[in-house]
């Protein structure tokens, strides 16, 4: 009797302690969330404001929403052309990266041949040279190949720099597919290519999704490569477009924020729907788990 009383009391004390801890935890987490969201929300609301309102009341709702900030952008041909250019770069980069990396990852995960690990290491070497640093040598190469002012001059380097990471992620997932499936596929008369196409790829769909999503983000956000490679502004993607726009309307923060929001809102929606794949890709590949 006495003993059970004692446990309940100590349990309750622990609960109070835990409640206090939890409250502190929430306060801290909410504070960090506000620091993350504050600038983003200011930008999205700011698209409907005048610069004066943005300065005086960054968080409040605008007295009269200035929809014309958005309308003028959406009515400009430049915006839609830049959106189209961004789409070309994303689609080209993603489709080529996924195809080449899936083929590579298959070879490095399921086939046995001499020198496999050496060749695989050669392909992961690229992880050390992110494109944000290698842009100068890459730019020289693009110029020598005559790919200046050509979207391929952006797509192909992005694929090359995407291959190491994507192959690493896919290889991790391809290896996890049990070899019994492979054996039975061969017994059923599948060739290597048949096994790859009909068995492995459908099973590895989440990891392919992860690579697609991660590469979409990379290609959509790329800035310096287009800046160097594309001299003709009719080929520019949105990343260059927004810099140009900011140069033009730099002091009109409302307009600039409208442009920013037009990019942020779809990015956030994309993020909400693809978060699962992003997390899978970033943590599932080679992380020991």
């Amino acid at each position: 009797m006495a003993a059970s009383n004692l446990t309940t009391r100590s349990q309750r004390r622990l609960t109070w302690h835990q409640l206090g801890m939890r409250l502190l935890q929430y306060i801290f987490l909410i504070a960090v969330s506000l620091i993350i969201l504050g600038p983003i929300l200011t930008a999205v609301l700011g698209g409907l404001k005048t610069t004066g309102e943005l300065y005086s009341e960054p968080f409040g709702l605008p007295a009269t929403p200035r929809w014309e900030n958005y309308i003028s952008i959406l009515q400009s041909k430049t915006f839609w052309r830049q959106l189209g250019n961004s789409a070309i770069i994303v689609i080209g980069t993603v489709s080529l990266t996924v195809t080449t990396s899936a083929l590579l990852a298959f070879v490095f995960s399921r086939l046995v041949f001499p020198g496999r690990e050496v060749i695989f290491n050669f392909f992961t070497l690229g992880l050390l040279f992110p494109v944000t640093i290698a842009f100068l040598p890459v730019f020289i190469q693009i110029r020598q190949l005559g790919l200046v002012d050509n979207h391929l001059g952006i797509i192909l380097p992005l694929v090359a720099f995407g291959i190491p990471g994507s192959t690493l992620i896919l290889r991790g997932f391809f290896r996890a597919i049990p070899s019994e499936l492979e054996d039975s596929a061969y017994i059923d008369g599948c060739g290597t290519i048949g096994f790859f196409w009909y068995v492995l790829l459908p099973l590895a769909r989440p990891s392919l999704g992860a690579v697609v999503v991660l590469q979409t983000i990379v290609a959509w956000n790329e800035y310096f490569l287009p800046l160097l490679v594309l001299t003709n502004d009719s080929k520019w993607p949105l990343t260059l477009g927004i810099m140009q726009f900011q140069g033009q309307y730099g002091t009109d923060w409302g307009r600039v924020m409208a442009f920013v929001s037009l990019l942020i809102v779809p990015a956030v929606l994309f993020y909400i729907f693809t978060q699962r794949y992003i997390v899978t890709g970033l943590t599932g590949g080679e992380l020991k788990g």
Partner: protein
Amino acid sequence: MGGRTAQRRFRFIPREPTNAAQRPHTRGEQLLTIGLFILPGAVIYTVFLIMPIIQAGHYSLYDWNGLGPLVEFIGFGNYTRAFEHNIFQNAVVNSLIITALSLMIQLPLAIVLALMAGRKLPGRFLFRSIFFMPYIFSEIITAIIWSFVYNPGGGLLNTVLATIIPDYTPIGWLANRDVALLAIFFVITWKYFGLHMILYMAGLQSINSEIEEAARIDGASEFGVLRYITLPLLGPTIRLTIYLSVLGSLNQFVLIWILTTGGPANATQVMASYMYRFGIKSFNLGYGSAIAVIIFGISLLFSLGYQRAIMNRDYAGSV
């Protein structure tokens, strides 16, 4: 996270060496398939990644404006010039400062947040989503938003501080030599700590909570459990994030260039922005190539050293 669990479920199934004789085709066919599968990736990878990097080593030995033929061979002249240039020395120091700050502030913050929003807390998915969100934004968007936040006139930060602090004089966060680098580091943390937090969360998930429970029953304090059980078990993840954080910090560039172009008076110049400023913008591609080789060399040395000394044991068992 479906793929993760699937992967874990299959992890302990021993992989039998595939028996080539069992397969319905010859060794020649097999090699042909391997060749065809590797070829497309190998061509793109070699032409657009490996070759440029090797060529950079070659160009770095010339005084070359990027337009004419390569004629003025100057040996290691570009390298000695870089190491003697005080702005480059400064840029190296700034890169190291950002690296050190990332390790000392960004990673511990990410661990604390991962532990807090980590395993059992109601609402953890919402917090995780919010914290990771900036990671997907482009550097351009991030830089534009933050140049408004830091705006010396009526920027967000000055407005907020003015309402909290009486008699507050607005600060030009990015124009002031003393605070510009810290202001930039804050943006870097804002954008990238979520990546590390996600990795820590994945690491925490794989820790068997029964071990921690057992320690608690044995009378260990919460701090003791954290110090002697959770953190050591998180070791492989911590070592991985240190590696990613160092490489990421050394390569930090786009955000800095758009926010300050390395200014004021080179106070925020880092190695990569220096390469852009003194290599490409001043039409000195030979010199720029030398800077690129130096950055690659530092990354490579760090990477080899770190993997050999620290990370090998984490992967020795898993491969």
